[in-house]
């Protein structure tokens, strides 16, 4: 059990070190990357099975007991997030290997990608607010490098915005940590859970709001989302896909974890989160409608979709949180697939500008199918995974009698469908246009890898829809742990 908890963090770091050593040989780096991520995928699936069967698992690294030592905890939410994140990282790595560009031109791609994986895994598994900060920094540091890989002028410009915003959020996180430690004398999450309850309500609410702001910047909720559509589209496709699928969801995970575990149920800022959720959905989708570039449209959709997850959290009921968890699972897979498809479109047509591409459905029918499946899923059309996830959220909202936010979420679904139709009608329908510049040369095996990875993720999204019954039950069990964190606290503090 100990090994299962630490492997997802240790293996990628070890892999990164080996990968730096093998810097001269790209094939060796590829083998290391794929083997490492496959190994973590296997170990995290085992972890999920174990945690689902036996309940929360925790490890005190270094042998120091709970509030003092470094705690790693896996409950159902953490294990689910880990599994889906690692599967996605693996698929995107295969895509990156197939695509000419970022991966083959830069020695640093593989090591940094593995460090990113380690940071993400550490964020999910840590049981300590300060180590959450460290894990965030590991992940962000790797993301700074990946987003500016290539050093083009537009990448440097947008990368600068991204780095500065992330740094400000980190500084604010550090300040919040100072306040938390100053008022409670501990940074262990389970220990904080009991100690924060004793604080005066003013101090407690300000800590809650500070944490919402800190994680809100990372998760790109309204009004803290403006950096995202600016910085994501300029990065190489595999990098954008990982960021879009994963990094904001890590923020959402931290938001869910901190709000459910740290603050007693009577004082949770439900209304605030619901208002923020509704505004995030609306502003994000309106932004998407105004755009003309595929990657930018999709980037604004990330913001809009974050609203749905925050809505599930804001309800603070078992059904709401279960809906949020299911939505995150669906969203990570679907969003990544869409960005990979956008990369394939850019590869084929030489541009992502909708005005300059047309008729892709005739030239590349397979590509059109790969776009259509996740696009309909994102909009929430049955029988795809988006429908199941949205249905769960809407039912939870109706049960909690939050009719306004439910209405907003349904209207936003329609607008999402509208902007997906815009990409479809402009880019895929019509007569094929002559391309501005010839598509980059992709070998047969590279093409097979890129399409294979994208198709695998699209297949995973369909599998989520097919297995939605058991998955919803799993999410519901995870949500029950979140609403009543006593098992989590017992596992860490051991009393």
């Amino acid at each position, binding site marked *: 059990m100990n090994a299962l908890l630490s492997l997802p963090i240790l293996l990628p770091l070890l892999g990164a070190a080996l990968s730096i050593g093998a810097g001269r040989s790209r094939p060796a780096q590829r083998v290391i990357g794929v083997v490492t991520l496959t190994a973590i995928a296997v170990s995290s699936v085992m972890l999920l099975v174990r945690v689902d069967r036996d309940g929360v698992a925790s490890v005190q690294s270094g042998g120091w007991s709970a509030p003092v030592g470094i705690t790693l905890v896996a409950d159902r939410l953490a294990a689910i997030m880990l599994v889906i994140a690692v599967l996605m990282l693996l698929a995107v790595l295969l895509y990156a290997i197939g695509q000419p560009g970022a991966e083959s031109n830069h020695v640093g791609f593989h090591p940094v990608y593995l460090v990113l994986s380690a940071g993400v895994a550490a964020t999910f598994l840590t049981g300590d607010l*300060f180590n959450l*900060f*460290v894990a965030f*920094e590991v992940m962000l*540091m790797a993301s*700074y*490098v990946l987003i*500016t890989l290539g*050093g*083009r*002028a*537009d990448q*440097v*410009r*947008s*990368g*600068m*915005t991204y*780095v*500065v915003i992330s*740094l*400000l959020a*980190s*500084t604010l996180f*550090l*300040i919040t*940590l*100072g*306040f938390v*430690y*100053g008022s409670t004398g501990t*940074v262990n999450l389970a220990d904080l859970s009991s100690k924060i309850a004793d604080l005066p309500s003013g101090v407690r609410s300000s800590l809650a709001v500070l944490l919402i702001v800190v994680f809100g910047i990372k998760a790109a909720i309204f009004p803290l989302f403006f950096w995202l*559509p*600016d910085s994501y*589209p300029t990065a190489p496709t595999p990098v954008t896909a990982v960021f879009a699928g994963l990094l904001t969801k890590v923020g959402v995970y931290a938001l869910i974890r901190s709000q459910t575990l740290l603050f007693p149920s009577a004082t949770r800022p439900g209304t605030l989160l619901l208002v923020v959720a509704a505004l995030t959905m609306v502003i994000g989708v309106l932004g998407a*409608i*105004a*755009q*003309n*570039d595929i990657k*930018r449209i999709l980037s604004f959709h990330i913001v809009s979709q974050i609203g749905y997850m925050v809505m599930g959290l804001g309800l603070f009921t078992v059904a709401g949180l279960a809906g949020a968890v299911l939505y995150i699972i669906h969203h990570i897979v679907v969003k990544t697939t869409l960005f990979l498809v956008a990369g394939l479109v850019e590869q084929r047509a030489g541009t992502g*500008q*909708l*005005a300059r591409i047309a008729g892709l459905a005739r030239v590349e029918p397979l590509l059109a199918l790969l776009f259509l499946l996740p696009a309909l899923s994102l909009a929430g059309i049955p029988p795809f995974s988006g429908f199941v996830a949205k249905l769960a959220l809407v039912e939870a909202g109706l049960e909690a009698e939050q009719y306004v936010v439910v209405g907003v979420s349904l209207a936003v679904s329609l607008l999402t469908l509208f902007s997906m139709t*815009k990409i479809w009608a*402009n880019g895929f329908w019509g007569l094929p246009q002559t391309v501005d510049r010839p598509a980059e040369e992709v070998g047969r095996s590279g093409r097979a890898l890129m399409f294979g990875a994208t198709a695998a993720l699209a297949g995973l999204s369909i599998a989520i829809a097919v297995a939605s019954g058991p998955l919803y039950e799993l999410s519901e069990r995870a949500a029950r742990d979140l609403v009543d964190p006593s098992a989590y606290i017992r596992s860490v503090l051991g009393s």
Partner: protein
Amino acid sequence: MTVLMAVVAAILCGCGTYLVLGRQLSRVVIGIGLMGHGANILLVFAGGDGGSPAFVGGDIDDFADPLPQALILTAIVITFGVIAFLLALAFRSWQVTADDEVEDDVEDRRIARQSHESPDGGNGS
């Protein structure tokens, strides 16, 4: 002492915020550095007033809280690394644009202009 340090942290964060709001990258980098210092001071004084060195003899009751010191040590290292990266990025930005200013998002400006020109929002086709 704690109050004095809280004031110092506030001044550092204030100056940092002012600098970060500027458009020149060199100012932004210095601003981020100042805010980092402010946060670190806040964190180390979150452990209460100072005392005698921990773990090397003396009375347990006089120990200074060692945990915040360990925490800021980590935080300082992280801030240092990130600022080094930021400087490298600023240098690269100066190399490619020969300027020290953060530019606007071109695509964003273009879309904003477009919606001013055509009242239907214009989807570019």
